[in-house]
């Protein structure tokens, strides 16, 4: 009887002890998570500030570069009036600049919107759209587009689109959804290619499943600025 009573007493103490243990463990976990969070915040905030600072610096560099290119172009143009040979050279330079995407373009075309629907849970990671953006650009060239831009960045011969995490880098510039792809060209030809069920199948399937927002509309007048990035030619030599 005494043994049974002692067992009952012990059992009564055991339950609060286990509960207390659970509470301590949970509290410890919360503190540890808070510490990890503090460390993350400590590093993330300055990293955000660095990115925004570097992006602002890049914008300023691009503006300077565009100004210098215009200045050099004006100088060459003025010098070109002096002889027929340089005039011919100037004409070739103008043609090549336009072909390379170094001059602004305007005309009718198509505007494509690409975005992710609002996240269901707050911590849902955004989609990486780089493959979709390269597919859409490929489709635009296929439909005969004369100029294409992604969120204002002119797509040229050196352009690449890639993801770092879920952030997109186009022409070395960081960008995020929503994306606007502008394509100058015959709107009917562009729209026909985009509407062709055999094209952009994966993107259209995801649109139908509502996991992506994707639509294209005709535009009577689109303006696309010139490429303002570097023209790196160091290893290749003309033959």
């Amino acid at each position, binding site marked *: 009887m005494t043994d049974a009573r002692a067992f009952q007493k012990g059992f009564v103490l055991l339950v609060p002890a286990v509960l207390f243990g659970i509470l301590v463990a949970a509290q410890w976990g919360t503190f540890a998570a808070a510490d990890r969070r503090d460390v993350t915040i400590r590093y993330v905030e300055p990293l955000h500030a660095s990115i925004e600072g570097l992006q602002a610096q890049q914008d300023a*560099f691009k503006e*300077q570069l565009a100004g210098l290119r215009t200045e050099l172009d004006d100088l060459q143009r003025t010098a070109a009036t002096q002889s027929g040979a340089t005039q011919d050279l100037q004409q070739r330079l103008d043609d*090549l600049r336009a072909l390379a*995407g170094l001059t602004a373009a305007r005309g009718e075309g198509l505007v494509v919107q690409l975005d992710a629907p609002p996240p269901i849970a707050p911590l849902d990671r955004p989609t990486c759209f780089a493959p979709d953006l390269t597919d859409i650009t490929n489709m635009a060239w296929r439909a005969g587009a004369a100029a294409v831009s992604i969120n204002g960045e002119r797509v040229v011969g050196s352009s690449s689109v890639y993801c*770092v*995490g879920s952030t997109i880098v186009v022409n070395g510039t960081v960008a995020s959804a929503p994306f606007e792809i502008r394509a100058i060209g015959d709107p009917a030809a562009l729209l026909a290619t985009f509407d062709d069920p055999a094209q952009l199948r994966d993107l259209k399937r995801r649109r139908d499943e509502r996991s992506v927002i994707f639509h294209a509309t005709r535009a009577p007048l689109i303006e696309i600025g010139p490429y303002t990035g570097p023209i790196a030619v160091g290893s*290749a030599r003309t033959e």
Partner: protein
Amino acid sequence: MRSRTGALTVAVVALFLGVLVVSQFRSREAFSRTLQQETPETLTTLIADLSDRNRQLRDEIFDLRSRLEQARSSIAGGRGALEESERELAHLQVFSARSAVSGPGIAVRIVGPFDERALSDLVNELRNAGAEAIAVNDRRVGPRTWFGPGPEGTLVIDGAQAQGPWIVRAIGAVEVLYVGLTRTGGIVGQFQLIYDRTRFDVTREPLLRLPALSSP
């Protein structure tokens, strides 16, 4: 009547500015929101990429300033700007793929099933690694080049049918291009997993000769 028109103009301009400010704010907000969800490792990679791009831009600004000075002094000396124009012409011919080019680089030999999306991704990756000129088999890749599917074993490049095996050649900084493609988790490693019946060989090439773009 005139004051009414003026007020209307001011209202329209104010509305336009308001829309611009709001859309700019929203775009910045979306951008910041995306950054908030990135890990410190990702943010560090972004910083490295941005710093690298800014260094390239700074170098080009420095180069353009010096070229501008040279052109000015050449014009002042009565020699015109012919030398500078010819130099720029050569640069633009490479950049727009309008001339045949030569230089060091890498070659990717692809033997087996492959598709147009993967080829487009490979070209994108080479551009990302700083390729200055790219060709697929004997066709130069230009600023507006597109890839499409073709009948069995073929692909369409700028409207022309091309037959595999594929040799993708790229001129640029050899080691950067080579490491860019073959690093662990890089595009060639991914291709090897996805196209398990296809062989991918990447080689460093001391001298490549690529043709000019054949389509307009």
